[in-house]
Each structure stands twice: as structure tokens, then as C-alpha cells.
């Protein structure tokens, strides 16, 4: 990974209320990182250093936790976060085809963001809507019983919405 600590300059004061509440409470690292991600949209490297300093931990330890859990991101996400379900039922009902369709339409694979910052694709384990499989969730909205053409329609619809705005 390229060193980015020189290039980000996050407003660390935003995290102060959370740190005041949790920094001294043992076992709160995951909770702090969850709040930090909510605040910044991802975990910027300077925030990781800051959390380490404030909790009396090391940056390596904090980064270790941040990279262990799938919920945490070290890079910003696009305007639309596509969470594509890769659960068993979705697999059986053709989620690979949906993934291929998204990859071809947007030119990104799992974990990547389009250069225009519009879409991020993330494969997730199971969204738990197995009877609607294959399923994807975009910014909290669930789209079920997907086919390649339905997927294209949804993605192109979102693109149009942005162009209009």
C-alpha cells in the first residue's frame, strides 16, 4: 500500500466526543472504529494513528483490527455503494453472472471504486434475503431477483439520476 499519511488531513476533532466516551473503556476499539467510519465514511490513516495514541495502543494493533473485519474500509467509497450478496442461495441462483455484469458495465471489481467516484462494488457474505436471490443492496435499498439486464437497468438509472442532478 502506498503511504498516504502525508496526503490526508482529517478533522480529528470530529471524533472527540466518541473518544471521550470510549478511549478509557477497555475493549472498545471496535466500537471506536465503527464510529470513526460513520464519521469519515472510511478509516483514514491519520485517524488510525490518532485512535492508537488516544487509546494507549499502537498503530499496528489498530490497523490489525481494522483490516481483520470486513466492515472496515481504508479507502473512501463512491456515492453509491453496491453490496452484492455472495451468499449460498445467491450463488445457486446465479450471483456470478450479476457480478460479471456489474464488472463489465462499471469496469471495477470487488473493493474498487469507479474513477468518477460514483460506484464502489463490495461483495458481502449474506444479506439474508435469500428468497429474493440474487440480491444486491445499493445505499440501503435492496434489489432482488436480479438478472443481468435488470442489473444494467438499475445501474444506468442511477447514472442518469446523477447526470440530471
Amino acid at each position, binding site marked *: 500500500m502506498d503511504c498516504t499519511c502525508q496526503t490526508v488531513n482529517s478533522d480529528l476533532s470530529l471524533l472527540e466526543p466518541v473518544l471521550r466516551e470510549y478511549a478509557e473503556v*477497555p*475493549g*472498545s*476499539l*471496535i*466500537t471506536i*472504529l*465503527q464510529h470513526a467510519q460513520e464519521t469519515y465514511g472510511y478509516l483514514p490513516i491519520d485517524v488510525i494513528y490518532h485512535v492508537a495514541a488516544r487509546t494507549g495502543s499502537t498503530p499496528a494493533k489498530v490497523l*490489525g*483490527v481494522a483490516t*481483520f*473485519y*470486513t*466492515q*472496515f474500509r481504508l479507502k473512501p467509497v463512491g456515492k453509491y455503494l453496491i453490496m452484492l450478496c*455472495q*451468499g*449460498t*442461495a445467491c*450463488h*445457486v*441462483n446465479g450471483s456470478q453472472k450479476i457480478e*460479471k455484469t456489474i464488472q*463489465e458495465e462499471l469496469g471495477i471489481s470487488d473493493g474498487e471504486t469507479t474513477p468518477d467516484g460514483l460506484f464502489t462494488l463490495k461483495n*458481502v*457474505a*449474506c*444479506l*439474508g*434475503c*435469500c*428468497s*429474493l*436471490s440474487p*440480491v444486491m443492496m445499493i445505499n440501503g435499498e*435492496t434489489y*432482488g431477483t436480479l438478472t443481468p439486464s435488470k442489473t444494467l437497468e438499475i445501474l444506468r438509472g442511477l447514472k442518469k439520476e446523477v447526470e440530471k442532478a
Partner: protein
Amino acid sequence: MKIVIGEGSCGIAAGAAKVYSALQSRITAQDEITLGVTGCIGMCYLEPIVDLYYEDGKLAHRLVRVSPSDADAILDAVRAGDASGIEKLIITKADEGFLSQQTRIVLRHCGVIDPTSIDAYLVEDGYKAVEKVFATMTPEQVIEEIKVSGLAGRGGAGFPTWFKWNAARSAKGETKYLICNADEGDPGAFMDRAVIESDPHSLIEGMLIGAYAIGAHEAVVYVRAEYPLAIVRLEEAFRQARARGYIGKNILGSGFDCEFRIKAGAGAFVCGEETALIESLEGKRGMPRLKPPFPANCGYNQLPSNINNVETFANVAWIILNGGAAYAKMGTENSKGTKVFALTGKINRGGLVEIPMGKTLREVIFDIGGGIRDGKQFKAVQMGGPSGGCIPASLLDTVIDYKALGATGAIMGSGGMVVMDETTCMVGMARFFLDFTTKESCGKCVHCRLGTKRLFEILTRIVEGEGKPGDIALLEELCTTVKDAALCGLGQTAPNPVLTTIRYFRDEYEAHIAGRCPAGECNALVRYDIVEDKCKGCTACVRVCPVKAITGAIKQPHSIDQNLCIKCGSCLTACKFDAVVKA
């Protein structure tokens, strides 16, 4: 009249919230209609579901696959007291069978009560079991009652619940913890989410009884972060239970204190393993510990802890109220009570199914689930997720109990039941699970970290048409090593999907190595051709081919350039004359 909409996560995903808004905006002050919500009814394939109740609380009609555009018709019918205008929405007799063939204990309130209201729970004998326990039972008697019931851990391993409770009770130390594992990570299982979203107080009540039995004054629910609605509903339930004196100090005047809190997980399958879950609760990477010491003696914060799964706790209040013997009456010799399954995949009626142990797989899949979709053939059912295995058609009469399922090479697991038809490639299925376990392996022990990766690589090679003779034996050898040597349950069970598919579908592995995918799913091993005699030269396939691999003049037979073809299958779908064939 009361209109109730099923708003579990999958109901909402199917559009239940939009149906609710459509109805709400059309109900006027003159209407004597109340609008309410309930949790997950478990008939996922019929969502969104709207129930119409008479004033006396009796169900008048259950409407299925409702869309917001049906709102006017529904309200007209309710106002007129005449359902003839909404007949097409009323559930069919056959679909009613999905529920009527079940025995619901864990799901007894799901889709019946309003999960956001403690009063709705109290009406259904809610918190009566806690009252009974505090008034008439010692902790030892509670443990004895659970022992009589035969209740076993519903998270997968099936360990006797009373034994764990007793060990935690007997452990030395003043401070003990009760932990609920709601980190439902098995892709394809969602019964724990349904219970929390639809009946959160039954979880609290079960945990409260467990806390009393082991002597814990702090209870933690570790919930998957991917379940935001479950977290919201549980927090609300905590708030209401605290306000009524069911959580906190001196509960119901018993002198017993217990505080509850939620810990949101951050996404790691291995955290379903109890010692990994404890590490995660402590804010660390969720990597399993060596056992012993067991959590009962040395768990969270190095103190005695007891961990049970959501479904296990959801049984407890029922057992206390109805007696352990009544629970033990259901089931088989070695597996008592009921089990909830999430029936999904290529099935006609998918959803949550709760049945007494001892029914056969065939009864669940064909009688309750209505068999295979689109008239296809049943091929296998996957049970137990990434730790489980695939059970073939020849074993459909296997009874559902821990021992019988274990004998097939699969496991009961948390209750995921994914049904597959002839179009599902079994080697691909094994590869799918190993892809999952490779990513979810925590990396602590070598056998799991590298073993799953190598298994995945060999399986990838096979589905990509580069399998070699001897690969099957190599897979088997590696599977045995990983099973024997891995540190925790994740690694020890990760080879199960490979071993069971080799055991029951060895011919598919052999076919792949010989260059053919019988299910026609592995792209590298299929090819598309145009049958000259059938091709009318309509150019439909030419127009849909994304890589221009099809050539031919109009009204002349076309052909596919195999070097250009990316095997997307678009031509097959586009052809109206069955001229494109897949082999």
C-alpha cells in the same frame, strides 16, 4: 379491522415498507382501521404479506405478494367488508400448508405480534417464565429443567445447554457473563435475525433465565453488524424491558440484578466460534483461543462466561412454562424439540421452517417446501453452510437429528438448507465454500490458513478445465490433514463441503478432470454451437453477442467463432428456434 404488515428485513426488501406507506396515506380519519406491523412471518417467497384481522384479533385474510398499487383495492375491501375485489391476493390453500405443517416454538410469536411493543409480548404470556423462575425455582432447578428438556445448542455444534450452564454456574468467581451469539455468519441462514427482529423479548427472557441460572449479572448480545434492523429492535426492546423492571436492579423484586447490552460485530465469520467471539468482544482481532481453558472457567475478560445462540435462548421461556418433559416429547432419541431451518435455493416455497426433530429431509423439502422450482430435478441439499456438506437425493429420507445428519458427512449446523437442482455444479459448489473459508480463515493456524487456500486452488484448477488425474486423491488427503490439525471449528469443518461432494458426486469431479461439466455451469468446460439445420439466419444471436463472435448472412445458417466466444450464453437465450446448443 386491523391491517398488519410483515416488516422483517426480507419483507422490507421485498417492498413491505412501501406497501405500508401506500396504505397509511390512503386511510382517512373516518376509517375505523388500525395499521400495524409485525415481524417476519417466515413465508419469504410470498412477501410482502398483509394480514387483515377482525376486531376480536382473529385472522380474516392473509394477502400475499402485495404491491403498493393494491392499496386502494385492499382498503375498499376492508371498508365494504367484502373481499371479492382482492381474491387474487388471498393466500392459496397450498401455500397455507407451508405454515400449517410446522410446529412453532422458537418462531411462536414471529409474524404474530408487534415486535416493537412489550405489551404485545406480555399478552402472549410474555415474561411469565421469568416470574415463575424467580418465584418458585432455584438456579439448580432451572438447570435441571433444561436438562430434562434435552435442549442442545442450536448454533451448530449441538452441545447440551444444561451442561454449559452448569459448568458456568459451578465455576469459581463472583463476576460471570452471559453472552448471546447473534453473529449469524452462515450464508443462507437467517433464523436468528428473524427471531431478534420479530420477537426480541423472547430472547431477552431466555437470556434472563440463563443469567439467573449461572449467576451472571451482565448479559451481552453480540449481533452481526449487517443486521441493522435487528439492532434497532433489540435496543428498543431493552429500553421497554428496563422501563418495566425486567432489566436492571432487583428484577421483579427478586433481588436479582442483570444488565443487558449490545455489541455490534464488524463482520468476521470466525467470530461465530465462541473464543473468537470473546476476543472480538474484548476489542481485538477475532482469533480463536486454544481450549482448554473453556469459556465456562476463563472467558470474557478471563472470567467465567457462558455463550449460547439466539435460537437456543428463544426456546428457554417455552420450556420453563410448559416443562422440560413436554419439550423432550418432541424429536428423536438423541435430538429433542424443534429446529428452525432457512429453506432457500431452487425451492418453490422458501422461508423459515420450524419442525420437530425426526422429520425427514424429504418432508421438509417436498411437503413443506413444495419441491423444486421450474419442474427441475432435485440434486442435493446443502446443510450447515461452510462447515456442512451436500446431501444427495439417495439420502432424502434421512431423519433430521444431530446423529443422522452427522452420519451423512453434513451437519445440522445453524439451520441453513440450500436446495440445488441439476443445473448446479457440485465441484463449483465446493469451490464456492472454500472461497468463503479461505477469505474468512483468521490466519492463526497454518493448516487452516494454507490448507483452505490450497484446497481452493485445486478446486479452481478443476473447474477451469485444468484438473489432473490424482487431484481427487490429493484433495482427500489435504482435507483429512486440515480436519485433523486445525485449531478451531472453522478449520476443522472447512473441508466438509469438499469431502461430501467427493463422496456423493465423485463422477462430477471425474467428468471435470476429463474435460466436461455435467451441470453445464463451468464456463471453461462448456461450448456453444449453432445447429445448421435449425438456424433460420434471423440474426437475433448476432445482435446480442457482446464480442461479435457470431457470423453469417441473413437467412443463412450462422456459426460461432470458438476463439472469440466468452460463453456468456446470450445467444442461447436470444434464439427462438432452439438452434443454439450448449454442451
